């Protein structure tokens, strides 16, 4: 075990000990000699036998000096050797030779064992030597591992200078030889602003940014990272950045011709033909068909239409998740939006034996909506109402005006939901335990419906009672209430979302 040099070194102890010991020995000798002198003087021996007295005192001085010297050597020598050994293993600078345990004089007294024990205890020191080499090897190993991974790691010191960056980290060196992090953050939510906030008020903090590019769109070799930052005030590496290279995942969203759009194109081709010819055949065959054959046609058409709706949901979800979902808001009415899907919904309801009652007054104030997207929302809600209601059940679609909003309600009298289901309802891929067992679906319909409604600056909510049915309420702003903002932003939803503070909290999707 290494003896850690303290403020006073071990080698400083020996001179101190020797001085004290010698002082005490000399003092005792002098005092003893003094006492003998006084005793002899008192007995009057100085007058009668002066020579004998002087010889006696001289003998006492020599004898007691010799005894003291022998005792001193016997007691202090081992201590001196032990100290020399301690000084040796502690690594203190010294010129003394450490005691050799193999010295024959040590073997006799057993001091050899003492020294060996001491050296053995200290031999963790020599053992540590290879451990230190191992440390270096391990550092190399970690460094090379860090340089092999596609994830970037960046360490910054208290002044936020980069003190380490692995190969994958988007770091280059500027003209002054300073390492510089290349990340282009969105808006005001930057690493700098976060660090400034941390400096002010945090001891420990973490933050995550997603989809952060290292270069501008037109630059070669652009990469995208999810950046995870950890801040630990006062630590040697005060800031640790882990950068997960998500280029493969995100770049598809950046490319004009991405996979999902292509896939949708390929799927929509055959659907177009199926829907088209079903329509053509139905109208051309008309009265030649028997009632059950008409029903078969209708079911085929309903299925093709639903397939088409599912593709739209997938496309919109993919856009929304990549922050590319944009609405083209125009002045329209709830009933005009519903007209887009009116025939389709009537057919779907009757094909599945539900009673669909739609009462959307024509004279409601106009709304600001993207008719194609909002009609998909209504379609999703009615589809759900059909799915989760019983054979022959009634589904009511109604609309009223409420302040600056038009509220459209889709109500069924079906199986309803318990409260714990309601709270998860708008999550992506969420499907209630019951619906997993009994009803087909993907769990993106309500997720994307909420996204679309919120992109209109509206809200979607649900009222439900287990076993009694559910009502979904969609609130869309009246056109009059948002007309100015829409005109400012060229009919996109950017204006109403970014300026209509309080309407919608999550507008991060518009940054894409």
């Amino acid at each position: 075990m290494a003896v850690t040099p303290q403020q006073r070194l071990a080698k400083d102890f020996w001179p101190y000990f020797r001085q004290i010991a010698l002082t005490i020995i000399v003092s005792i000798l002098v005092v003893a000699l003094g006492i003998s002198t006084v005793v002899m003087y008192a007995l009057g021996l100085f007058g009668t036998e002066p020579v004998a007295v002087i010889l006696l005192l001289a003998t006492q001085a020599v004898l007691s000096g010799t005894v003291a010297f022998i005792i001193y050597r016997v007691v202090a020598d081992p201590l001196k050797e032990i100290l020399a050994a301690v000084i040796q293993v502690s690594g203190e600078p010294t010129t003394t030779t450490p005691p050799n345990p193999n010295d024959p004089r040590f073997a006799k007294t057993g001091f050899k064992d003492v020294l060996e024990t001491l050296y053995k205890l200290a031999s963790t020191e020599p053992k540590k030597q290879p451990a230190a080499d191992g440390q270096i090897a391990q550092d190399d190993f970690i460094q090379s591992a860090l340089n092999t991974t596609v994830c970037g790691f960046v360490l910054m010191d208290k002044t936020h200078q980069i003190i380490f960056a692995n190969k994958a980290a988007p770091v280059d060196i500027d003209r002054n030889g300073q390492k510089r992090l290349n990340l282009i953050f969105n808006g005001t939510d930057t690493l700098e602003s976060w660090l400034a906030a941390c400096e002010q008020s945090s001891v420990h903090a973490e933050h995550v940014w997603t989809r952060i590019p290292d270069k501008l769109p037109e630059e070669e070799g652009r990469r995208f990272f999810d950046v995870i930052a950890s801040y630990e005030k006062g630590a040697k590496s005060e800031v640790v950045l882990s950068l997960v290279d998500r280029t493969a995942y995100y770049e598809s969203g950046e490319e004009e011709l991405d996979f999902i759009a292509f896939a949708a194109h390929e799927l929509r081709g055959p659907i177009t033909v199926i829907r088209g010819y079903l329509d053509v055949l139905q109208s051309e065959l008309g009265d030649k068909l028997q009632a059950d054959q008409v029903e078969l046609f209708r079911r085929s058409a309903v299925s093709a239409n639903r397939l088409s709706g599912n593709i739209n949901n997938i496309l919109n979800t993919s856009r929304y998740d990549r922050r590319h979902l944009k609405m083209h808001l125009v002045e329209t009415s709830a009933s005009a939006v519903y007209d887009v899907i009116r025939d389709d919904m009537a057919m779907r309801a009757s094909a599945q034996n539900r009673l669909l009652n739609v009462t959307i007054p024509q004279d409601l104030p106009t709304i600001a909506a993207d008719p194609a997207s909002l009609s998909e929302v209504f379609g999703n809600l009615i589809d759900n109402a059909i799915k989760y209601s019983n054979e022959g059940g009634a589904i009511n679609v109604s609309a009223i005006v409420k302040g600056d909003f038009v509220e459209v309600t889709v109500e069924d009298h079906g199986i309803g939901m318990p409260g714990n289901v309601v709270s998860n309802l708008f999550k992506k891929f969420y499907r209630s335990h019951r619906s997993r067992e009994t009803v087909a679906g993907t769990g993106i319909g309500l997720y994307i419906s909420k996204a679309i409604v919120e992109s209109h600056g509206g809200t979607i909510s649900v009222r439900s009672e287990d076993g009694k049915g559910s009502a979904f309420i969609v609130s869309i702003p009246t056109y009059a209430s948002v007309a100015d903002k829409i005109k400012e932003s060229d009919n996109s939803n950017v204006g109403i979302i970014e300026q209509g503070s309080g309407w919608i909290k999550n507008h991060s999707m518009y940054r894409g």
Partner: protein
Amino acid sequence: MAIKTVLMIEDDRFIGEMYARSLKKAGYDIDWMIDGNDGLIAARNKPYDLILLDVMLPERRGSDILESLRGGEDLIPHSKVLVLTNFEQDEESRATMEKRADGYLIKAELTPSKLLTIIEKLSK
């Protein structure tokens, strides 16, 4: 303006035949081009009342055709243009095409009878 002559630029044979059949039955004169280059040439050589324009086309994309026809000077001032596509373009391309066309429709949402209704509306 009554619509009588129609140029359809469409590379999907089944879809093309489906629309062509319905349009002919409804009494329109229809020319059908399959690739984008032929489509552009046809559009410039003959004053059609209506052009049905697909986006994903061989040789030249629908967006390029529309750019050539209406990007600068309007070379087809007498024609209506309906973009019919199943392809989800990026926002900018879509917005540009919407500005230059008289309608932008997703084919999967459009039965032949709905298309005829829309063309009738354009005629008025």
